[in-house]
């Protein structure tokens, strides 16, 4: 099994080669396809000249990249069938909103196949999809649905925030023998950061600390983690910033460790608030570390409303580094002065 050559705990030494987030995804995919002939990619426009925001361009094995019709439900079943019978598909959806067309296959088939047969089979299927707003795209083309899928047993959910994590998490996902969904925020694609050239994995379920502080724990995912980091750096906030990187499984040890230190929790997750990732993290911290909280936890996410199209509404709808920073200052700024 070629995958045993991976060093799964590889950390990038500082000052290594910089790569854009989207190129990190491209490199991971290309390397995986070169390493293992069972790996192939499929999806609507996976093979077109734009190459999924550039993440699929100039691949070494174009013969293993299948463009598909607008048949997301069937595409997903087909990918599952291939995964059950020896292949390792990467199924790509240009927007996570299209996953909803394939809900039956994802929730009733992909997520359940292993447990329905008592884990006797592997389902090495990766489902990449793109989240985040474009530009006046409205309610059906701007969602971030990680919370919806994280709710389903049998699906792992990863959300890289940095180029390093994008490559490592995608390789972990491809290497994994169970279904993994990777949600990629389109606003991260152009961000750059150090990415090793060799292949490496990041254990699914291992978060990381992006900023060190002692007054407030902020758990933030994907673009929200980068926005919070920006707020911390611009405003010099005393924040312990945790990026779980994997939503499911969730690195509760790291989160609880931080909350024990700070006694306060804010979760920033760009998704609908009701029953979402932020609600889950908040409730777990309350269940497992209630006595260590000095104040009620807080959340930042989308409003309880569908995405509007008009510019001013859109700008008011989405949190930004400033709205996050102001909220944190209102909270711990007062506390520090008192």
């Amino acid at each position: 099994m070629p995958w045993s050559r991976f060093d799964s705990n590889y950390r990038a030494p500082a000052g290594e080669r910089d790569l854009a987030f989207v190129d990190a995804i491209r490199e991971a995919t290309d390397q995986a396809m070169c390493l293992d002939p069972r790996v192939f990619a499929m999806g609507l426009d996976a093979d077109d000249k734009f190459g999924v925001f550039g993440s699929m361009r100039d691949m070494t094995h174009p013969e293993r990249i299948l463009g598909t019709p607008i048949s997301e439900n069937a595409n997903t079943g087909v990918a599952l069938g291939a995964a059950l019978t020896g292949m390792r598909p990467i199924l790509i959806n240009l927007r996570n909103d299209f996953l909803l067309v394939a809900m039956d296959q994802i929730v009733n088939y992909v997520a359940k196949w292993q447990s329905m047969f008592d884990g006797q089979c592997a389902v090495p299927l990766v489902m990449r999809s793109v989240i985040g707003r474009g530009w006046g795209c409205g309610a059906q083309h701007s969602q971030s649905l990680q919370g919806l899928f994280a709710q389903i047993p049998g699906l792992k959910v990863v959300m890289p925030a940095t180029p390093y994590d994008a490559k490592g998490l995608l390789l972990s996902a491809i290497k994994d023998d169970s279904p993994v969904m990777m949600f990629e925020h389109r606003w991260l694609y152009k961000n750059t950061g150090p990415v090793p050239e060799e292949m490496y994995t990041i254990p699914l379920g291992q978060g990381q600390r992006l900023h060190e502080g002692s007054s407030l724990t902020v758990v933030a995912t994907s673009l929200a983690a980068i926005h919070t980091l920006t707020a911390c750096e611009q405003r010099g906030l005393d924040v312990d910033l945790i990026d779980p990187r994997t939503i499911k499984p969730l690195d509760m040890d790291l989160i609880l460790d931080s909350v024990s230190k700070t006694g306060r929790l804010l979760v920033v997750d760009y998704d609908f608030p009701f029953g979402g990732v932020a609600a889950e993290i908040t409730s777990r911290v309350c269940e497992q570390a209630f006595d260590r909280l000095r104040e009620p936890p807080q959340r930042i996410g989308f409003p309880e409303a569908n995405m509007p199209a008009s510019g001013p509404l859109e700008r008011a709808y989405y949190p930004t580094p400033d709205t996050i920073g102001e909220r944190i200052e209102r909270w711990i700024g007062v506390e520090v002065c008192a």
Partner: protein
Amino acid sequence: MSTAELDTINPADALRMLRTMRVARQMSQRIAKLYPTDVMETPVHLCIGQEAVSAGLCCHLTDADQMLLGHRTHAPALAKGLPLRKLMAELYGRTTGCSHARGGSMHVFDPEHGLPGSSAIVGGSIAVGVGAALSSKLSGSDFISVSYFGDAATNAGVFHESMNFAALKQLPVLFLCENNGLSNVMPVAEHAAYEIAGVASQFMPVFRADGTDALSVYREAGKAVRQVRETRAPVFLECTTKRWMKHQGHERDDLEINPIDPVTDCPIARLERFMIGASLITPREILALAKEIEAEIDDAIEFAERSPYPQPEFVEA
């Protein structure tokens, strides 16, 4: 099949089609010109080259007839009766827009003119159109419904499920496939292993029209709509046409597989040549018409520009 009688078009309808197509065309050209200035913060799927399909079809529809659209909304919505001002204001993100600035380019709404909404997730609105036909049947109404979609929407399972439903339940719905031969940059031969009309013929009678020729659409849509009204059962109409612009945005298409001849592929030029030849209009009158429409577009833009933006009012998370 074209008898002399069917080829003869009522002059008022010819003029109506020309006007409808010119409104859509001139409006789209204006959008394309303004788009780079970012006054419209919404993705636009322009219909330049495809205007004859909705113009020819809508000559045969009433305001009571319902039409369910996908993402490429402008020309069909205008043809169905959506006022220019309401469309422009929606593109400008203003409260006076047809969806009160919540929808944007892909989500148009105008119940007065039989537009109960449109969807940007390809395929799903086909079923919604069948539902409108079910409503007509259950309520004992006369109106018919049109599910209006592109060639690639036929890739989706819901297309087949909807045709089966409509045929089994005998519902008065026209399946209108505006086939521009493209799914974004993918040619139809790469997204469909079937012949679209061939699949549809398993479920219902099929008509076909040349979607770059308003007269052909007018004739075939006339027959198709009449058959839906008379039989109260589903009918399929495929109009083959050409997309002149990129899938989205203000730029001309440049795909090798999609060569455009601005003379023979232009439904407006074709109809104008016919009308001039048949003495239904003069070149001078066409110029006057174009000017009149430009003034209407100016008015729609001014209306949009002086309309207010919505005030954000969301529940805090």
